[in-house]
């Protein structure tokens, strides 16, 4: 421990020294007691004031703000052909991106001028994918990639998959073009980081449905809009992770470079960037995953590919076909994930100079390149290598199996699931929602601010005040409270599941290996695919929305908690065991308390992920904000209301994010 390290932390510590001093006063009473007191006061006032000033708004009613949003939207649409901003700015962007996407599409997915097939057929693509995976990763992921892509063909979804791949790659390129420099900048400068963070929050929590329609106004229907919508959603992880990577380069190394007289530029190019490469690649990985999550939504504005297949199949409730396409998305996601992960790991391992294999590497790379080139040539020239052979019989088998399983589950489980739903809805969700929606708005607002302050400190409290104020301003207070109730219940269930499975996974490497692929799949499988069976099992209810949110959010929480439990030092566990703790005691007294940071992070991420499913929930009976957003997307006169609902979701997200993060910081302090 060098003195310098202590010193650099010192100024920050002195900065925060005062707030705890003011917040320490109530400490004499203990925080849980204050929370309980707030809740009791709330309940008492609720009993007295129930049903007054609830700010509820009918489904078709609008506020002035909503009408104003509508007018703005309309005037943009009306002026788009005369406005110079459109003529010289948006149109240019659109042209560039359209050209890029079309280029990639013609390369791998769409017929081009004079050719009934794309430039590179399936064999060429599989060859390139295998070669690149091997070159940047290792032979194992290369094998996986080849198998995965071949499987896409066997599913009978080759062209759709390639369309999705083309769009995803283009969107990722566009996103990274901005994200990486911005991330580096945010990593170097605290000020930039502070400015950028709220925008990133906004980009990640604002439901895509809200900006999908305006995007088509700006960039027209077509690849550009789909690409930009995807890029907006996919860029934030890359920015955040790049900034984090730059920040976590060891201080000594940077100092060493400075002590040798490196300029800022030299320090950046020769030290910071190379040393954060590994983490930055993980950021790219997250961006790819996020881009794939947008596939089905982009299909609503005519983005071709697997998403379109899913959406179309759902019109006739064809679960099998939707599942087959969803599975293709999962396969592609897993391949891309494993390849990028391997590439990131390679940054560290592959240069072991002792391996005799490495001496030949250059030759092997050249040889592999030649093979890939030959395959590309073949697939360019010959039909058998250009169009995937067969009828995609694997696909229809999968579809049929999925349909059978769904039908069986619907027939045999729905009694059970309905009972389960009713217990949870009547026992937990309904009372909670009544409390939130039937209390006067100012009472709920005050309670939220009080809780925020107690749990997160005065700064989080101030954020809560602003968020509550703006929520009232959106005119959707009541809907927001309904959504809040479902969100909270879903988050509680996510955490229960997260702790149970997370601890199990954290304690057993075998369980981890078995569960992880399932979790990955649950995260990337488009929710649209499992909505239909869920609807059959739970009906069009808020509970269905909650279950869908859990499927999407629980994997994140589980993984974070598992990692947290695993990070508990082995010696501590050993020490506990040597004092005679049993397994239950080790979990509850050692492993869980020591992974408190992971638990808070899991709550935070779980909440954000649940919130990002609000709109999907609106499609299956959750009503409230989710429905407002969907309706706003579908009906012109509700557009403004949908936008306001989107803003309300963002506000809920920001509020909870700030409170949980502040609470986590205090817990860690």
């Amino acid at each position, binding site marked *: 421990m060098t003195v310098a390290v202590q010193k650099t932390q010192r100024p920050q510590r002195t900065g925060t020294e005062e707030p705890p001093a003011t917040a320490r006063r109530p400490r004499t009473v203990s925080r849980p007691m204050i929370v309980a007191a707030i809740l009791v006061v709330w309940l008492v006032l609720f009993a007295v004031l129930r049903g007054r000033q609830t700010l509820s708004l009918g489904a078709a009613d609008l506020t002035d703000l909503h009408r104003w949003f509508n007018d703005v939207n309309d005037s943009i649409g009306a002026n788009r*052909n005369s406005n110079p901003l459109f003529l010289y700015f948006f149109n240019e962007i659109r042209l560039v991106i359209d050209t890029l996407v079309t280029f990639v599409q013609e390369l791998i997915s769409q017929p081009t001028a004079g050719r009934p097939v794309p430039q590179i057929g399936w064999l060429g693509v599989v060859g390139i994918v295998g070669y690149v995976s091997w070159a940047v990763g290792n032979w194992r992921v290369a094998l996986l990639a080849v198998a995965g892509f071949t499987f896409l063909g066997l599913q009978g979804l080759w062209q759709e998959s390639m369309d999705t791949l083309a769009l995803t790659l283009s969107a990722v390129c566009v996103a990274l073009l901005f994200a990486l420099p911005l991330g580096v900048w945010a990593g170097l400068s605290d000020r930039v980081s502070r400015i950028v963070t709220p925008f990133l929050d906004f980009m990640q929590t604002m439901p895509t449905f809200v900006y999908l329609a305006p995007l088509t106004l700006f960039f027209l229907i077509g690849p550009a809009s789909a690409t930009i919508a995807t890029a907006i959603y996919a860029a934030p992880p890359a920015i955040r992770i790049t900034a984090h990577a730059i920040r976590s380069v060891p201080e000594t190394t940077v100092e060493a470079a400075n002590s040798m007289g490196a300029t800022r530029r030299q320090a950046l190019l020769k030290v910071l960037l190379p040393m954060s490469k590994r983490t930055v690649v993980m950021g790219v990985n997250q961006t790819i995953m996020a881009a794939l999550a947008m596939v089905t939504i982009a299909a609503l504005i005519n983005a071709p590919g697997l998403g379109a297949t899913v959406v179309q199949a759902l019109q006739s409730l064809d679960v099998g076909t939707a599942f087959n396409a969803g599975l293709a998305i999962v396969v592609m996601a897993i391949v891309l994930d494993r390849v990028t992960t391997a590439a990131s790991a390679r940054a560290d391992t592959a240069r072991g100079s002792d391996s005799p294999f490495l001496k030949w590497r250059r030759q092997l790379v050249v040889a592999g390149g030649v093979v890939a080139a030959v395959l590309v040539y073949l697939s360019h020239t010959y*039909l058998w290598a250009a169009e995937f052979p067969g009828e995609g019989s694997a696909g229809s088998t999968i579809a049929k199996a999925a349909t059978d399983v769904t039908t069986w589950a619907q027939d045999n489980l729905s009694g059970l699931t309905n009972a389960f739903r009713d217990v949870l809805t009547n026992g937990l969700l309904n009372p909670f929602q009544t409390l939130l929606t039937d209390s006067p708005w100012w009472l709920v607002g005050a309670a939220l601010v009080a809780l925020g302050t107690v749990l997160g400190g005065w700064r989080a409290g101030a954020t809560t005040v602003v968020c509550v104020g703006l929520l009232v301003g959106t005119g959707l207070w009541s809907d927001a409270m309904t959504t809040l109730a479902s969100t909270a219940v879903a988050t509680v269930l996510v955490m229960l599941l997260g702790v149970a499975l997370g601890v199990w996974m954290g304690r057993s490497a075998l369980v981890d290996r078995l569960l992880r692929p399932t979790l990955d799949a649950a995260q990337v499988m488009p929710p649209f695919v499992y909505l239909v069976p869920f609807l*059959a099992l739970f009906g069009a209810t808020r509970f269905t929305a909650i279950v869908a949110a859990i499927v999407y959010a629980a994997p994140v929480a589980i993984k974070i908690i598992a990692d947290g439990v695993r990070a508990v030092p082995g010696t501590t566990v050993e020490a506990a065991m040597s004092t005679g703790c049993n397994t239950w005691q080790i979990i509850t007294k050692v492993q869980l308390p020591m992974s408190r940071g992971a638990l808070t992070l899991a709550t935070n991420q779980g909440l954000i992920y649940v919130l990002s499913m609000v709109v999907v929930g609106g499609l299956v009976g959750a*009503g409230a904000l989710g429905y407002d957003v969907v309706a706003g*997307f579908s009906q012109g006169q509700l557009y403004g209301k949908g936008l306001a609902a989107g803003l309300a979701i963002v506000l809920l997200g920001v509020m909870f994010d700030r409170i949980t993060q502040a609470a986590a910081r205090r817990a860690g302090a």
Partner: protein
Amino acid sequence: MARHWRAGAAGLAVLGLTLTACGGAKVGDDSAAGSGSSGKCGTFNLAINPWVGYEANAAVLAYVAEHDLGCKVEQKDLKEEIAWQGFGTGEVDAVVENWGHDDLKKKYITDQKTALDAGPTGNKGLIGWYVPPWLAKAHPDILDWKNLDKYASKFKTSESGGKGQLLDGDPSFVTNDEALVKNLKLDFKVVYAGSETALIQAYRNAEKNKEWVIGYFYEPQWFMSEVPLKKVSLPEYKTGCDADAEKVACDYPVYELDKIVSAKFAKSGSPAYDLVKNFTWTNEDQNTVAKYIAVDKMAPEAAAKKWVEANRDKVDAWIK
């Protein structure tokens, strides 16, 4: 060692080229056949709104435009709102099943003048409250709105807060149901299922498990051929009775489903425009094609082909 590998690479290359020599049919051998049909029609941008009935219309139109008129049909999967928006930007030529949408008509036909009405499709659109067939059979009097309150408690769910549940659904359609419930003084609460998918699944379960469900639905709809829902009669529609959205107390009007085209497309002289303008068929026709697609799981193009081949006379009337 290095030389070995280089030799290997060269060997592989040679092998590849040998394969080439006996590799089978070449791309482009038959490419001439594919591009033969591009006539004077040019490109026809057809919006595909996300419901099966629409898709049936579009599939048949696209099939005819492609095979009889030699057009290059670009089908674009779009929600209504965005499809209409596309008239202005020139990216959409036609919407071939439109349900009312007076607001959009005002915006794009009257105000922006980027779209034109291209006449009815011949389909009649009904909107209203429907119950599953078993319920209509078991309690025939339920088909009159006046008796609904009698059964309200049967329709109670976890979502309806003690009242009967009226399941509303697709956010794409205007609904007067909240006003209707209020103005008809029914002991019901409107619950938003949020999507057509959710509605259909609810009715499907209801029919299978004999559950009590009443909700907002519409026809023509492919699902009717799977489960023929029964419409509950509401107070009769009279022109203007739905003028004030707050005070509606009557049934939904019967919609004359129509086709909308972009102003540019109408002036282009494309044969596809005439096709769209002349296109008209019956609810039964649409249900047939929709059933091919949704129930028999045929590709839209195959479904269209099957119907066109069976109904050549109708098609010929459109392209005269």
